[in-house]
């Protein structure tokens, strides 16, 4: 079969090659132009902006200096803020993975009607604005009289109210809730590819329920968990609304800092440097971990 396919075209290829390539370029041109116009050009301008100078009274000066980058690299304030950003993103990713993977697994084992109902419950929040959902959390956290603190205290888990507002804990909890659907969907997609008889096969070979989960199910949905983790991590690291509302002015992350530089300090070049650094760091992390995952699972999942 493949031998025939391989053997036939070479004689016909050179004649059509040039025209095929032209047609391909022509057909992709509109999308390509849109891509260049709304993504590549603004991005390039942002990168250029990060090399411009800025002063309180002179505004933006289109020169090429490394002042902003030097400031971002040496001022420990930025280092702390970036570490916080990635710490929050990592914790959020861990929580969504630990809770979302079992959630997807349970969902997948439910029978017809319940499955669609709970899928709607999980995906429903995506229909509501992130701002509205985060404000909901702010109401629940709200100071020492917040519902969450009242509940925890009445359960006897804590003696005195915990601070949630303007803390990393609060941001992580609210972000984990916002990001959960992405993890569940990703794991769910991986579960769809698992042979429904495979657990019975392991069972018949003498494996207990815990062994089946650990040795049969988990390795097979791991690519789903990892791709879900990449989505959640990059969305959490660049999240704006949730850290802005829960963290406020006191607890800045990369996205809220860039926002403040742009709109409050009006130091656009410095904001651009922060934004570009966040972008580059995220791209490196995502591409790097994606390559690792692909190498790890190339043999098994294709």
């Amino acid at each position, binding site marked *: 079969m493949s031998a025939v396919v391989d053997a036939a075209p070479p004689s016909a290829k050179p004649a059509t090659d040039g025209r095929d390539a032209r047609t391909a370029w022509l057909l992709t041109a509109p999308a390509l132009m849109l891509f260049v116009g709304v993504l590549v050009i603004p991005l390039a301008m942002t990168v250029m902006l990060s090399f411009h100078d800025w002063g309180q009274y002179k505004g933006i000066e289109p020169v090429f200096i490394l002042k902003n980058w030097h400031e971002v690299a040496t001022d420990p304030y930025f280092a702390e803020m970036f570490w916080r950003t990635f710490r929050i993103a990592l914790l959020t990713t861990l929580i969504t993975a630990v809770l979302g993977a079992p959630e997807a697994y349970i969902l997948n084992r439910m029978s017809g009607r319940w499955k669609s109902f709970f899928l709607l419950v999980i995906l429903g929040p995506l229909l509501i604005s992130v701002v509205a959902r985060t404000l909901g959390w702010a109401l629940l956290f709200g100071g020492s009289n917040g519902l969450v603190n009242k509940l925890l205290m009445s359960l006897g888990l804590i003696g005195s109210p915990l601070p949630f507002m303007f803390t990393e804990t609060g941001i992580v909890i609210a972000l984990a809730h916002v990001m959960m659907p992405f993890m569940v969907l990703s794991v769910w997609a991986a579960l769809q590819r698992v042979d429904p008889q495979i657990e019975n096969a392991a069972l018949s070979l*003498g494996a207990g329920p815990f062994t089946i989960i650990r040795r049969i199910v988990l390795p097979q949905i791991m690519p789903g968990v990892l791709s879900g983790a990449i989505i959640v991590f990059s969305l959490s690291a660049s999240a704006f609304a949730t850290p802005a509302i829960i963290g406020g002015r006191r607890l800045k992350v990369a996205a809220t800092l860039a926002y403040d530089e742009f709109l409050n300090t009006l130091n656009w070049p410095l904001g651009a440097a922060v934004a570009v650094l966040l972008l580059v760091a995220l791209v490196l992390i995502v591409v790097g971990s994606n390559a690792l995952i692909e190498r790890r699972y190339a043999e*098994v999942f294709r």
Partner: protein
Amino acid sequence: MSFLELDRVAKQFGAQTVVDDFSLTVGKGEFVSFLGPSGCGKTTTLQMIAGFLDPSRGAIRLEGRDLTAVQPAKRGLGIVFQSYALFPHMTAAENVAFGLEMRRVPRSECRERVRATLAMVGLAGYEERYPRRMSGGQQQRVALARALVIRPSVLLLDEPLSNLDAKLREEMQIELRQIQRNLGTTTILVTHDQNEAMSLSDRIVVMSQGRIEQIGTPQETYERPASAFVSQFLGKTNDFAATIDRTATPGRLIAGSWSAPAPAGLAGPVTVSIRPERIGFGDAGLAAKIVTRIFQGNHWLFQCESECGAVIVIRQNDGQPQPAEGEAVRLAWRPEDMSLRRAGAAA
């Protein structure tokens, strides 16, 4: 005799009875097939033996002890699934070794048994392959090896060959039969393919709508079908109307211009059932005309329009001249080759 015993087993899903009154005893080393159309309850029965489903009524016993009280993981049965259900993240050897690991078999013994079992199914040298990189036939062999390596008391096969192409399926049938004979493993095969059931089994359980229609050797079920369903499901068959005339003595069975001495018992209108390969062309008998003649290599298939309706005739291609299309013929058969039932009895 009785190694595995199913005693009036039934399974209900809500109000729907999927399997009813299923009783069967299987001897040690026997190869039994559950044969029937889809939805006849054969897979449900297999899953009850495996323990994935609990019977609503009845008992399943293995060597005299109640199997339904045993966890599926502790039953020690080998199962080959229709989809094979191989572990895609493990190599062939790891797949096969899984059952031994669960039994805490020492590592060196485990490695030796995995190697030997893979060699037995013809996959020596494929130990490190992942299932995705194997053909359907090879995956099937891994699944078989995985089920056999734990030395199961009973091997359950759930339509294991249905995903293979015709030629490979035939090869695997022969191989499966040889392996089963050599190991002497009691085996239950679920299939909807009558050829597969007949060529592999010691006995066939023909099922329809959750009930057993007949239990017998392949020959018995083919030659002496217990019901119209069995005769139609196993191979081709001709059913046509005839009458038994008891006014004369001795009584005669009459079908058009064919007649024979009537057997004892029935009287009046009856249905005659006869296999197409048992009908011959003769000088006397049922008058018919050949409508179409189809050459099928080792045999000819004739579709005839007779006095009693459409009749199929199969003749061996033994080099003799065969009647042509449109030719008028007489159909004859030996009375002992047909079976009779009262007309109107379940078809």
